[in-house]
């Protein structure tokens, strides 16, 4: 029994990261129908920013206490990562959009930007990995054979909070409606008096800053940073977002946790060498039964 509960907790933590990253994918997708393949790498950049911010705050100049560092690192990381995301939007995606390029060309550009971030990092910082400093005193609670750390709890709550916040923005506010509207018809947006570029920048700010937050939390949970750390988790988070129903905030959230549960579940039940094979077969089966993901609405073509 405790074995199962332990694995549920494992899945919750791992799913939280998928969910946090998938939310960023979905947010940008929900506005531009752009699969921002650079998102996983923005997440990586977020982790590195968190690393530098934390080392700087802990370092000789300030010499802050780790907990205060943690509290300060959250907004700083989010802001700086948002800047990276917005920069990408400005210099790479926007010109293409203005030229009316096919959406897949923007997707390929995003893929390329991701590579530039990865290898640029490798060129600038070298191949050796970075160790993220411990910011929170680790507490391990052992409840009837199940161990939980304070960090795990924090991560899970952060994912839920981010989801609630984003879901509110997207479904309840006018800016959220504008975001959804853009994805359907960019042409008519200015005709409603809506500044389209401002909304898009806002989306990138949201998406990237939460990628930064995810990067910080990830670096605290898995404190080893390397330039390619965002690649695989990024791809998988994208998969999670699609299985949930891309473009839908709930889809990304539940899709992330679903993928976490599938991966952990397969390892728990089957020999772990089959993890990818089984996990992806399950995902394929889900998409087979629900061709537009769990929450995705089939785009109705009125003829």
């Amino acid at each position, binding site marked *: 029994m405790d*074995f199962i509960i*332990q*694995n549920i907790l*494992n*899945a919750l*933590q*791992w799913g939280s*990261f998928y969910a946090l990253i998938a939310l960023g994918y979905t947010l940008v997708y929900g506005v531009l129908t752009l699969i921002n393949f650079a998102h996983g790498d923005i997440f990586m950049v977020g982790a590195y920013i968190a690393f530098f911010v934390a080392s700087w705050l802990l370092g000789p100049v300030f010499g802050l206490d780790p907990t205060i560092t943690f509290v300060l690192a959250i907004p700083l990381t989010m802001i700086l990562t948002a800047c990276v995301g917005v920069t990408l939007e400005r210099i790479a995606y926007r010109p293409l959009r203005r030229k009316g390029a096919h959406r897949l060309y923007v997707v390929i550009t995003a893929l390329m930007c991701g590579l530039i971030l990865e*290898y640029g990092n*490798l060129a600038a910082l*070298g*191949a*050796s*990995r970075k*160790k993220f400093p411990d910011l929170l005193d*680790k507490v*391990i609670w*052992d409840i009837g054979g199940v*161990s939980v*750390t304070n960090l795990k709890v924090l991560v899970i709550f952060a994912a839920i909070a981010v989801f609630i916040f984003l879901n509110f923005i997207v479904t309840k506010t006018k800016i959220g409606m504008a975001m959804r509207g853009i994805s359907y018809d960019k042409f008519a947006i200015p005709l409603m008096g809506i500044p389209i570029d401002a909304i898009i920048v806002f989306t990138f700010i949201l998406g990237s800053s939460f990628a930064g937050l995810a990067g910080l939390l*990830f670096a605290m949970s*898995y*404190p*080893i940073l*390397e330039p*390619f*750390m965002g*690649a*695989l*988790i990024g791809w998988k988070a994208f998969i999670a977002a699609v299985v949930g129903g891309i473009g839908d905030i709930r889809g990304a959230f539940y899709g992330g946790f679903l993928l976490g549960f599938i*991966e*952990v579940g397969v*390892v*728990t039940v089957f*020999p*772990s*060498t089959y*993890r*990818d094979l089984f996990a992806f077969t399950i995902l394929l089966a889900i998409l087979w039964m629900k061709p537009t993901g769990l929450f995705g609405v089939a785009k109705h073509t009125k003829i």
Partner: protein
Amino acid sequence: GCGEDKAQTIKIGFNLPLTGDIPEVGEGSKNAAEMYLKDINSAGGLEVGGQKYPLEFIYMDNESKAESATNVALKLIDQEKVVAIIGPNSSKQAVPAGGTCNDNRVPMISPWSTNPSTTLDRPWVFRAAFLDPFQGPVVADFAAKKFNAKTAAVLFDVSNDYSKGLAEIFKASWEAKGLGPVVAFESHGTKDQDFSAQLTTIVAANPDFIFVPDNYNQVALIVRQARDLGYKGPFMGSDAWGTPDLVTLCGEQCYGNYFSTHYAAAGAQGATKVFIDRYQEAYGAVPADYAALTWDSIGMMVEAIKNAGKVYSDPVEMRTAIRDGLAAIKSFDGITGSSKFDAQGDPIKCAVVVKISDTGEFVFEESVCP
């Protein structure tokens, strides 16, 4: 030829994973090579048959991809006209590149590849590392003795042929001992970061120790997560642990664990110590085993060139001479210990078991010889 008068350079190619999955391996190897190169060339070159020839090293990136490794090998051979090649490091690249070198009759030494196929039936291909079938039992024997272990668990990387191979060999040799079963045999993917599901299974099986034949970066995460899940027993590792970065990344949680490797950095003596100190000074880090093995591979290559006794201007002749020179090396004293070579060109050398001390140094524990 008549090139004896001119100071002809000897070109050696390096087929390294500078990008891709394991860029740090490429970087470490390159660093060691640069150091060696500086040594030789600042001394005026390599003395062969009473004359000094400068060395030239050409590094090329194989992106950790099989087809790139063969392309790089061909480019080094055909375009750069190197006389010998060092690398690739991991078996995924070394097996195909070894085939290419063998077909094109160019001597190649892989510093780090432990897959038997790399050199099997390939008279032109050599290596500096011992093979997995040797390392597996070393670990099993040591753990049985040291921890009084009856049960073992294994966590390895399925997509990494090295890790998977070693895990299987270990499992076989552990079970052959008849002390007890391998209670958990779990795997993960190359770029995974979360191992808690596998570790939960392992911890639930309550093994006496966990064998983790994984790269050091994953080790750091695995050990940490295992401790978070309440595992208190020891870990055992393999030569892929042997990077000082392990301690930087893993910290105190790795202290007190053991791994088998090619050499022990702490408490090293003689040439090994000199190498370590100089490397540390130049690059600010203790060299990993692949760096040390690259150094030894170059050493072997240099000895082979000296064995040739003469530098031919025609690369084809020179290659044959080097190959014969390599085959002629019956034993070699390197910084990773001394080795003898068998008919396949594989070294027979001692493995070292190293303990990660309470100050985070790799302390020599025991040497196991075949």
